[in-house]
Structures are given as structure tokens and as C-alpha cells.
């Protein structure tokens, strides 16, 4: 047993360090009042889906490892399918982003939210109406090239592109 | 860089001591007759120049007609590695001798293979299921394992008298 071990010097040294921390600024934030700014690529809840861009090709549904996207189309017009049903079952979704990566028309984006706890699991399924009505805060995850602006684009997409990554 | 010893070279060395043991040896692996597995394993572990003292991993693959048990072995002293394989004669009664007496690291891994693939390791010290519970019907990693006959997995647990389920 060394000298330090006998006299408890090791503990004293540790205590000095602990005391030093009293003078430091806290590095925590008080969550509901204070919010951290999220990075542009944050993969969050509320998928942002632009019906004007979506052609109903279902590439996203095929790319999903869990099969949580369900697409039913009704008819074909104007070089695209008319999307009848577009359900995302976010209760089984793992936010991997593979659907976003797969979409060839840049019609679906991850969202930027994380506060969507509900008491009922069925409410976690986002259907077409939910997706259209949702507040659109597209994350720029998996946008290897930023989408080219189009006339029928919604303003939120233009904002996201302007924000860049 | 770990040098991978080719199966052909290793097969020749094994053949010098156990003429019967080798079924075939190709670039990647040596395929052994399962009766000789334990003897060859201790030969590989103790022979100077080979000294495979570290069993990296044990697994099995279901090839529909038979199972193949695969051992990745490494020598820490010489920094070389090799792959040995054993084929079970058929699918209905797959039995392979255990190498847990040579490398005790095989203990849990062979239990896992037994649990998920249903290959029995003869003379294993403690051959029980490890990830699933006793009484689970079938071995899920087999290619013919599809469903639990319409039951959810939880319905396959049959409570014992004392109210304990699993060990």
C-alpha cells in the first residue's frame, strides 16, 4: 500500500476537481423552456410529403425495411399515378431514412419534430390527410443534391432549400 | 495482417497425422469428417507452427440437405487464421462433436447454434437453449422454420407447476 493510498490523498485530489466544477457553467439546458437548435439533417418525426412532387411510384415503400409505407394509387394521368392512399405507420418506423434516400423525385423528407407522443397507437399512423395538413419542416437528410425549385412547390420546401445544409 | 492459411495447405498438414480426417480442402476452408473433429481440433491447437489457440467464432448454415458447422480459428502468436467446416450427414439428426473441451470459448457459441439451428453437439458440458426458452417449438434459423402454427411466441411458454417459466 503506497503512501497516497494510506492517507486518502487520491480522494482529496478528486474532491478538489469536484470543487472546481462548482465554478463552471452548467452544460445542460432546461428543456421545455430552452430548446437546442437542431441540425439541418436531423431525422425526426412528421414526414414531410409533397403531394405535388409525388408520382406514386412506391419506390419509398419498397425501400422501407419494415414495410411501414402503404401506397394505393387510382388511375394514371399526366405521366404520374394519382395517389389515393399514402399511409406511414410511424409506430413501426425506425427513422432510418431509407425511404427518403430512395425517392427519385424528392417528394418525401424526414421531419424535424420529436414531440409527438400520443396515448393511442393508432394515431401514430399518418395518412394522406395528415401528411398534407402537417406543419412542414423538411429536414435535409439524404438530399444529395438539393431539389431544383419548381413552380408548384410549397413554400416550406423553398425555405428548406434556402437554409441549405 | 492476419494471413489466412489456405484450406489446401492445412488439409495436407492434417492428412499427415490423420489420413482419414479430411473430406476436402479448398482455398477458403478445410472440410473435416465429423468423427475426427475433436482430435483435429486439439492437433491444430497444439502443433508447433500452427497453434490455433483462439476460436474466433462458431456458426452453422442450413443448406437444406445438411447443416454445415463452421469454425473460424486464429493463432494469436503467429497471427494467422483458418476456417474449418464440418458437414452433418443429414438433416434429421444433425450431430457434431463438441470442441468445448479444446477451446472453452465454444461453450456459449455451440449452445447458441444448438438453440437457433438445432445442431446437437455431442459431449458438450451444458447443452441447453441459451437465447430462447426451454420448450420453444423448433429452431428458428432453420430454413423450414416458418411460423409457430399460428401462435404468437408468448403462447408457446407453458408455465411450470411452480409458476416459473424459463431457465
Amino acid at each position, binding site marked *: 500500500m503506497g503512501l497516497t493510498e494510506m492517507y486518502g490523498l487520491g480522494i482529496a*485530489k478528486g474532491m478538489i476537481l469536484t470543487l472546481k466544477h462548482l465554478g463552471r457553467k452548467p452544460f445542460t439546458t432546461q428543456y421545455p423552456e430552452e430548446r437546442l437548435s437542431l441540425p439541418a*439533417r436531423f*431525422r425526426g418525426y412528421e414526414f414531410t410529403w409533397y403531394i405535388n412532387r409525388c408520382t406514386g411510384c412506391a419506390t419509398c415503400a419498397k*425501400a422501407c425495411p419494415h414495410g411501414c409505407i402503404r401506397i394505393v394509387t387510382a388511375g394514371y394521368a399526366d405521366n404520374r399515378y394519382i395517389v389515393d392512399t399514402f399511409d406511414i405507420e410511424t409506430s413501426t418506423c425506425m427513422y*432510418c*431514412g431509407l425511404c427518403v434516400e430512395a425517392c427519385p423525385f424528392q417528394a418525401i423528407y424526414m421531419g424535424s419534430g420529436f414531440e409527438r407522443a400520443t396515448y393511442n397507437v393508432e394515431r401514430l399512423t399518418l395518412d394522406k390527410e395528415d401528411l398534407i395538413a402537417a406543419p412542414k419542416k423538411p429536414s435535409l437528410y439524404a438530399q444529395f443534391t438539393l431539389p431544383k425549385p419548381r413552380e408548384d412547390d410549397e413554400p416550406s420546401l423553398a425555405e428548406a432549400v434556402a437554409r441549405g445544409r | 495482417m492476419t494471413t489466412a492459411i489456405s484450406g489446401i495447405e492445412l488439409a495436407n498438414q492434417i492428412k499427415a497425422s490423420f489420413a482419414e480426417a479430411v473430406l476436402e480442402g479448398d482455398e477458403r476452408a478445410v472440410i473435416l469428417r465429423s468423427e475426427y473433429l475433436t482430435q483435429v481440433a486439439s492437433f491444430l491447437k497444439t502443433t508447433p507452427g500452427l497453434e490455433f489457440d483462439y476460436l474466433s467464432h462458431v456458426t452453422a448454415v442450413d443448406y437444406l440437405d445438411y447443416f454445415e458447422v463452421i469454425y473460424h480459428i486464429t493463432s494469436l502468436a503467429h497471427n494467422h487464421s483458418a476456417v474449418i467446416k464440418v458437414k452433418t450427414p443429414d438433416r434429421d439428426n444433425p450431430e457434431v462433436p463438441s470442441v468445448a473441451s479444446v477451446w472453452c*470459448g465454444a461453450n456459449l457459441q455451440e449452445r447458441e447454434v444448438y438453440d437457433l439451428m438445432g445442431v446437437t453437439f455431442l459431449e458438450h458440458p451444458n447443452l441447453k437453449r441459451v437465447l430462447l426458452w426451454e420448450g420453444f417449438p423448433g429452431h428458428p434459423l432453420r430454413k423450414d422454420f416458418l411460423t409457430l402454427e399460428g401462435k404468437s411466441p408468448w403462447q408457446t411458454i407453458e408455465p411450470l407447476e411452480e409458476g416459473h417459466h424459463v*431457465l
Partner: protein
Amino acid sequence: MSFKTEPLVVNFGPQHPSTHGVFRMIVSLDGEVITDVEPVMGYLHRGVEKLAEERTYLQNIPFTDRLDYLASMSNNLAYVLAVEKLANIPVSPRAQYLRVIMAELQRIASHAMAVGSFLNDAGAFFTPLMYMFREREKVLDLFEMTCGQRLTYNYMRVGGLSHDIPPEFLPALGKFLDDMPGFIDEYEQLLSENEILLARTKGVGILPPQLAINASVSGPILRGSGVKWDLRKADPYCVYDRFDFDIPVGKAGDSYDRFWVRLQEMRQSVRIIQQAVAQLPQGEVRSQVPATLRPQAGEAYAHIEAPKGELGFYLVSDGSVAPYRFKIRSPSFINLTPLREMMVGYKVADAVIILGSLDIVLGEVDR
């Protein structure tokens, strides 16, 4: 004086704070002395190996995140290396360097967690864990800005990475690298000389090197027993052969040495990242890979030195879009092999410390 004692069987877990998840040990005691230990696992078994047989090579990457959820980057890396080996896919130099940077950042984060929760088990309730969380948090911030998530990154891709790093990554990383050695000094000051910690961990749970090798343990546990075996040196993958770093090894093979090895490895990781940042080339990060990959029939085994030990993926392909067999060589699971030998003869209070020093993650033990 000797007391008359009775054998007693105690169940540790499955819901016990010291088991770091749902893991159960059936501990037989004679008085306070452990006479037998039987680990019981599988409470978190999700059948990843079976699930993976029905999904494409790309779709399996998010599943690997969920094995060792404290080191998702390493899991991603080991898996994509196995697929690249199977299908002979080249990786650009920039992606190789970024992979090394990510894997080493992940090692720092995972070891911080391991050290913190080990001290928690030793009775230093939560203060050291919070110190460690502070540093881990910075690593998670770096990961979040790169790939958008803090825990399940899904960042590596077959043939490279999903994204290049954002422009703000390197400055933030540089700041982290400047600060980190100071923090490790702090931990050492706080902990390595602490008499209580020394008394609780020195000479506890000794794993002799012969047994360690024979029982196939790997990672800091093997090195804590004094065996100098690190796949980054022994079998360099990515570009690890271009960096200069040391392999810390313990002497006694006790719980303290395993803890000490982890602390030192964090230092070495900082060194590796500094060199990698200095050498980081420009260029593409993802090579051209068909969207649905169909490797020719064959098999491949790739292994890396993950924070917990040798993490390997053994893939068998039959030429279709999904692997025919997907086997995970998970270090946490195999590191439990010598648990009985390590615990028998020690006091029941040491069981928690010994298990804590093994640093298992149940997502990986049970898969």
C-alpha cells in the same frame, strides 16, 4: 473463527440496475462467497439474424444499429465491410478515413459509457457517469450533425458512406479533440488514484491470460488480461495501418485493469482521429453500387475491433438480393463465456463490479 453458512441461491436480474439491461445471473452463495454462477440471457432476443435473411443488403444496415446500441457506427462498419468483401466493392479513400474517424469517435463514446456505468456499479453513484455523459454528448452532437440521429446512425453504406460530413463538422471535431485529453486527465485525477475504487476493483475478477484466450474473449477484456491483441494492428481494416498508436495492456487481468485499458484507449482514439483528420483526402464518399445488390454466391467473414471486442459478420450469399445466412459474432455475448470462472470465489458484492467491468450491452448479447 468460522461461521456456519448455508448455501443460498440469489437471482440477479433480469430487472436489476447492475445488469445494464435484461440479463439474469443465478448466483449460488455460500455465506457471502460465490460458489456458482449461471448466466441466463435471451430476454432481448429479436431474431435479427432471421429478419436479415428476408431483407436486402441495404435494408439490413439499420438493423445492425440496434445490436450494440452504444456503438452503432462500429456495427454499421463491420457489416458493410463484410458485404464489401462478399461483393468485391471498392471504397474511396475519403470514405475510409471518415469511417476510421467515426469508428474511433464511437469508441470514445462507448468507452465513456462503459467507464461511467462501471463506476456507477462500484458505488460512485451517478457523478462519474454524468462526467462521462458530458463527453459522450459532444460525440453524439457530431454524429447528429453528420447523419441526423444520436443513437441509431445508419450512416455507413455498402461502398462508402451515406453522406459526406457537413462543413461545420471538422471545426467542431477539432475543438473536441483539443479538449478531450484534458478531460481524460480529469478522469484519471478523479478516479485512478481513488482509494475506494482501488480497494473495490484491484484483484477482483481476475481473468488469467490463458483462460482469456481459450475462452475467446476479445477487446478490452482480453487486453486487460495482458494479451496484446488488437485487430486494428493485427489485421488492419480500412486504413488503420497508416496511423501510429499504442495498444494499452493490463497486467493483472482484474477489473481495475479492464477499466484502465478503456481509459487509455480513449487517449489512443484521440491520437488516431487527429492523424486521420490531418491526412483526410478529398473526393467522393460513395462508390457506384447497384441499388439492389446481388453478390455472387459465396461467403465472407469480416471483423473489426469494436469497442466491446471483435465484432464480426459472417455472410453467406446465394446470389439473390438478401443474404442466405447472416451471422453476427457479437463480442458481448462471447465475452460472457468465462463469467463463472471470473466470479467464483469472490464476494457477492464483487459480482456487480465484475459484470460491470465486462461492459456487456444486451442488445448485442441477445441480438
